């Protein structure tokens, strides 16, 4: 093959194997860590987005005091314990621009009772006005949701037809939701809102369990779907004007909040990666400064035989780019492989922290891979730019004088 500037750069890499491998290993570690942690963060966010999108609602209306808990509930699957009067549902329905309103009651499952999952999110919903649960049922016994039926999240341990009992109220598992990756859905059990009130009544009379609040005429919140073209801020304003005890949050806000929580969890890792990126740029700079110094003679000859200053600059940059791009691919391979190998353990530990995780879709992983390569490229360019400028200033006459 006839030589080209790019090939010349590639050939030069083969001169100093040790340096090449030092950069390769170091940049690979950084890119691997960056790729794997980004994949984790995006996986968590994807789980949240997917789960939130399944709400099918534009607004979530809840008691003012339960706002923080609600965000926590959506992120972690921990239930809320604040309630408001169910009469608000009709008030909201009456507003112009509101298409559908569905009330729900969130309960904490009792522990210590037979066949009860300690961390389940028990949700009572009204099948007559529901638009957030039924459309997402993956498997079901038949087409008619019974009064004592339950719809379970994908991570709950039961199967269709099983009988489950919460607060003394038996329910038959009628349907199962597909996996969302979000605690709210995956660990939830949905049932008729009347059953939630029965559970409340039963908890008041059964002294062996912690009593629930009196839920007659109460709801935990309302999911609101707006008409096409209706402005969320206007509807929010109308709801709050008439119901100052409530808070209306958009699902977008919840997602943002959840993302911030996720980023906060991973901020330490992100900070470490930033430090690693900067230190690698310095390392590449140091190595290429030495390379340019050692190859002054050779660069002088190349300059003498007709290389322009930009050509010399490109030669050095190409070398660094080749190394860093190769390192980027190796890093992604290592990071991706480690994530795949330890996916079960990682998901397990994230679940212990009540953080949902699902691998993002292929196109997102592709973009992430592109981003990782771009970071590797930028590291290569940043690290080698100054040595390349030094190389450009090499005087070919000096190389001749030195007896080259």
């Amino acid at each position, binding site marked *: 093959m*006839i*030589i080209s500037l790019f090939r010349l750069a590639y050939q030069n890499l*083969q001169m100093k194997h040790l340096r090449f491998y030092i950069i390769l290993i170091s940049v690979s570690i950084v890119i691997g860590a960056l790729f794997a942690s980004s994949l984790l963060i995006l996986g968590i966010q994807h789980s949240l987005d997917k789960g939130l999108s399944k709400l099918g609602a534009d607004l979530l209306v809840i008691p003012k005091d339960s706002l923080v808990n609600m965000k926590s509930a959506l992120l972690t699957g921990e239930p809320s314990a604040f309630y408001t009067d169910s009469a608000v549902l009709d008030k909201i329905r009456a507003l112009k621009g509101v298409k559908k309103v569905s009330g729900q009651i969130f309960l904490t499952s009792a522990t210590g009772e037979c066949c009860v999952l300690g961390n389940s999110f028990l949700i009572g919903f009204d099948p007559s006005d529901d638009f957030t649960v039924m459309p997402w049922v993956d498997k079901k016994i038949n087409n008619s949701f019974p009064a004592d039926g339950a719809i379970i999240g994908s991570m709950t341990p039961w199967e269709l037809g099983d009988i489950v009992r919460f607060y003394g109220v038996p329910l038959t598992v009628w349907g199962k939701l597909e996996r969302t990756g979000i605690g709210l859905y995956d660990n939830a059990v949905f049932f008729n809102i009347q059953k939630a009130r029965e559970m409340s009544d039963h908890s008041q009379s059964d002294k062996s369990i912690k009593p629930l609040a009196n839920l007659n005429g109460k709801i935990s919140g309302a999911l609101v779907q707006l008409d096409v073209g209706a402005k969320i801020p206007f509807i929010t304003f109308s709801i709050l004007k008439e119901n100052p005890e409530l808070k209306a949050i958009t699902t977008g806000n919840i997602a943002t909040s959840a993302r911030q929580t996720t980023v906060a969890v991973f901020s330490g890792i992100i900070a470490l990666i930033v430090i690693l990126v900067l230190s690698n740029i310095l390392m590449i700079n140091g190595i290429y400064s030495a390379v340019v110094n050692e190859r002054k003679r050779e660069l002088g000859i190349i300059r003498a*035989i*007709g290389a*322009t200053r930009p050509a010399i600059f490109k030669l050095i940059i190409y070398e660094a780019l080749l190394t860093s791009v190769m390192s980027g691919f190796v890093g992604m391979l290592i990071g991706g492989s480690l994530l795949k190998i330890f996916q079960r353990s990682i998901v397990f530990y994230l679940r212990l922290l009540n953080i949902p995780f699902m691998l993002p879709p292929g196109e997102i992983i592709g973009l992430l891979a592109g981003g990782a390569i771009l970071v590797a490229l930028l590291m290569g360019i940043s690290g080698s730019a100054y040595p390349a400028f030094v190389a450009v200033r090499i005087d070919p*006459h000096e190389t*001749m*004088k030195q007896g*080259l």
Partner: protein
Amino acid sequence: MSEFIETKGLKKVYQVGDQRVEALKGVDLEITQGDFAVFMGHSGSGKTTLVSAIGGLTRPTEGTVLIEGNDIWKLNDRQLSNFRNRKIGFMFQSFSLLPTLNVLNNVVMPTIFSNSSRKKNADELKTKAISLLADLEMQRKVYSFPSELSGGEQRRVAIARALINDPEIILADEPTGELDIRTEREVIDIFSHINETYKKTLIVVSHSLTWLEKAKTIIVMKDGLMFKDVEDPVEAIMEGVCKQ
């Protein structure tokens, strides 16, 4: 033969710390096309500086370098690089081949920086390089690496590299330094062959008197001054030695 290379009042001053060193003290030189000029003189006499100024490698402090009537030091970096690439074939003393490239790629290396040459396809370039190497009896070493070649063979490859862009001037700085007498004679014969066969203008800087046998023009450099057409160059050089 027409005037081809001309320098007028060429001066070069280096500032070494507080000291001002005059490497060239106003050199007026004319070299005709097809000449075989050998620059002789002691170390520090200004030979390499003069040749570097002619070759577009070091900017003179004063004076002009005209190649075919054009002042090369009025060119910008890109134009000057292109001039070096197209008009001049450089040959340096030793270790001037790139160790990571085989003989073929070392020879075609200047074409990387020559846009017009790159328009030729790879096969054409390869054929030309192999033809040049064959002319220099190096056809069996096309895919060898510099570390596998003798000193004489390395010089032949460097000559082929200097010729690949078909330049009009070959500029060689100590091309036979560190070679034994026999190999030196072989290299000088090759230069003579290039001068006669390819009609190239040769400018050679050397300490060796062996070049005098083949040179058409002998220029003696001494203390930054140039002496052309001296009656007895050997005596002129030796005199310099005695004085020093």
